[in-house]
């Protein structure tokens, strides 16, 4: 009896070992060492030397680029996330009413998200917004002659990235769609009987009942927007140009680490990023008590 239990234990350990080991080696150890490196001067090739808070001090006192990269990142997050969610909800509502070939539409709209972070898409975007790209050709159809390269122009470069992000609205859309399907039809029927028009129905029924889903999407999308890296890296050839207009925080961090070999400093940057994303997520959750409606609470 005892031996059997022992065997069960061993089986359990063996089956959980891949995850536990993976977590320890590839998650916990890296996290802890990056925390350690953030207090050191580490150029990758020599042993790290202790700096104390030096890296953090440098971030907030000396580094001019950091302000710029914050500005770019926040512009990107605050523009792309709401736009993306609005767009996702809009499409989800249309698909919710569609009756024919809805599966096909769903897949078609979801596709951009599947190939979302890929290098290929970023390169395609580079072509579309280039000086001889699709956008300029389309504009010329309307008689607007433009030979600018949208991704090379400082005033539009970031917006091409935002457009790319909005285009990849599929995953939020699918979640919204699931949420919409869960709203009982009788609510709308009852409201119609009482004379509510479409706008009323949207704001009084759809939005409140969907709010937990919105919270979920908002949190998830905000975090992933902060971590956006690939498109900016590809479109600006790893530089964050023109004029640092696409210098997303993650790109700046990457550049410090791998172009300038300042691993310690890059680790400090990563930790500050973690704190910022943490605070922002907390704020979203705090604010949610005011606008998220849970049916089960009965309010």
């Amino acid at each position: 009896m005892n031996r059997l239990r022992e065997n069960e234990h061993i089986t359990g350990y063996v089956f959980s070992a891949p995850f536990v080991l993976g977590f320890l080696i590839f998650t916990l150890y890296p996290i802890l060492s990056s925390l350690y490196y953030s207090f050191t001067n580490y150029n990758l090739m020599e042993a790290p030397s202790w700096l104390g808070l030096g890296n953090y001090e440098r971030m907030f006192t000396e580094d001019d680029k950091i302000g710029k990269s914050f500005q770019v990142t926040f512009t990107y997050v605050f523009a792309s996330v709401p736009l993306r969610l609005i767009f996702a909800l809009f499409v989800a509502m249309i698909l919710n009413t569609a009756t024919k070939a809805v599966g096909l539409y769903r897949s078609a709209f979801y596709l951009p998200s599947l190939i979302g972070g890929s290098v290929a898409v970023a390169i395609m975007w580079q072509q579309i917004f280039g000086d001889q790209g699709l956008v300029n050709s389309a504009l010329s159809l309307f008689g607007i002659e433009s030979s600018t390269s949208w991704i090379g122009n400082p005033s539009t470069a970031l917006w091409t990235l935002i457009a790319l992000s909005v285009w990849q609205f599929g995953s939020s859309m699918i979640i919204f769609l699931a949420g919409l399907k869960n709203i009982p039809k009788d609510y709308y029927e009852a409201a119609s009987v009482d004379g509510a028009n479409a706008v009323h129905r949207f704001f009084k029924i759809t939005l409140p009942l969907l709010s937990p889903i919105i919270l979920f999407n908002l949190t998830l999308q905000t975090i992933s927007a902060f971590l956006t890296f690939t498109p900016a890296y590809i479109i600006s050839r790893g530089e964050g140009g023109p004029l640092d207009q696409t210098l997303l925080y993650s790109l700046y961090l990457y550049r410090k680490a791998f172009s300038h070999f300042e691993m310690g400093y890059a680790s400090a940057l990563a930790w500050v990023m973690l704190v910022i994303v943490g605070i922002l997520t907390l704020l979203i959750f705090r604010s949610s008590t005011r606008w998220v409606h849970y049916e089960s609470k009965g309010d």
Partner: protein
Amino acid sequence: MRKVLTAVLMCSLLGSLIGCSGGNSADQPASAGTDTAPSAAAGDKKEPVKLRIAWWGGQSRHDYTLKVIEMYQEQNPHVTIEPEYAPFDDYWKKLAPQAVAGGLPDIIQMDISYLNQYAGRNQLADLKPFTDSGVLDVSDVSENALSGGEVNGKLVAMNLGVNALQTTFDVETMKKNGIDIPGKDWTWDDMDKMGAQAKEKGFLIGGFAYRHDVFFPYYLRTIGQKMYSADGKTIGYADDQAFIDYFTRYQKWYDNGYILSLDKEAQKKGVAEEDEIVLGNAISGTGWSNQFLAVANLVPDRPLELNPMPGPGTKEGLFLKPSMYFSVTETSKHKEEAAKFISFFINDIEANKLIKGERGVPVSAKVKEALKPLLSENEAKIFDYVTWAEANSSPGDPPNPIGAVEIEKLLRDLSERILYKKISVEDAAAEFRKEANAILARSQQ
């Protein structure tokens, strides 16, 4: 996206486990961390040796380098060589984590911008013992060419070829449009004039575009100044007027529309196919002598010519630059075998018939002589130009100090801000001095 960030995070952390390269999309035939230890040989005269070699470059370079490796393996059956190659930017991002992990390839292609960084941190082996013993045969290499690979009295890198700065002219188009073709002793004022004439006919002149890290030091040399001080701890020129003069002229070209606009420039991937001369938009370009070939080969119907950079002070400004090096790494278990391969690469005539000066005009006088009759018209032009430059240039500067890569980026940023009128040239000059000195001070730590 998240995956890349995780990769970045991980790379920042790995102590000694893995050599990973974040965000690297280049194909790489051999992976890092391959076992380099020789397995016991049975019956063979020489113990089998496995060498790893890494380089950066474009497709044509990969192709012929692989063939040279094959040739070497045929002659040395006990040696197996594993190649790893990537485009320039990815190459360095891959190399750094490998250095941390102690898993650098035995032979790495080295660039002058990174030489100090790697040599100063004891990643590169001293090749002196091998040149002394003759394993690395440098009997046909001039002292001048060899010294380009020395850091702190150690020969840490073997020069593979030399380049010189040059201006490319599309002579046919210039003649047809009545644009004066400047001679070898031309000046900046001639270049102004050429720009104006070209503009009038609807052509651009190839500006310096993003490579101020190359052309600004050239300009400084022409007026007897240096980019970096001899000890590499500060900026080398005393008076900001040099910066102001250089960028004021450049800004004038830009404002007059002589050179390509920045938004279009930003899109270039740096391949010859998108060169403005090839596209027929420009009558001139600037670059290293080896870069001439790819461009010239793409316009077979329009003969291009190499001309020196504008003066005054061309002779002081020009220098023979080691195009790139091969270094043997300190962690290599087969330094002598590695040196032997490098020796083959620079001295073997048959191998160099494949290489044909693609890595710069060969350093070995014998090879250079042997290749001459085999060269195409465009290749011969490069050899001739470099031969001319040998007699009309001055000794090069020591390898860039650690931090130079970051300073080059700073210079590019500032040039963009100048052209977009976000900063005055005077303020940019002051900021460059301040920031660059700060970077150098930090890098010395």
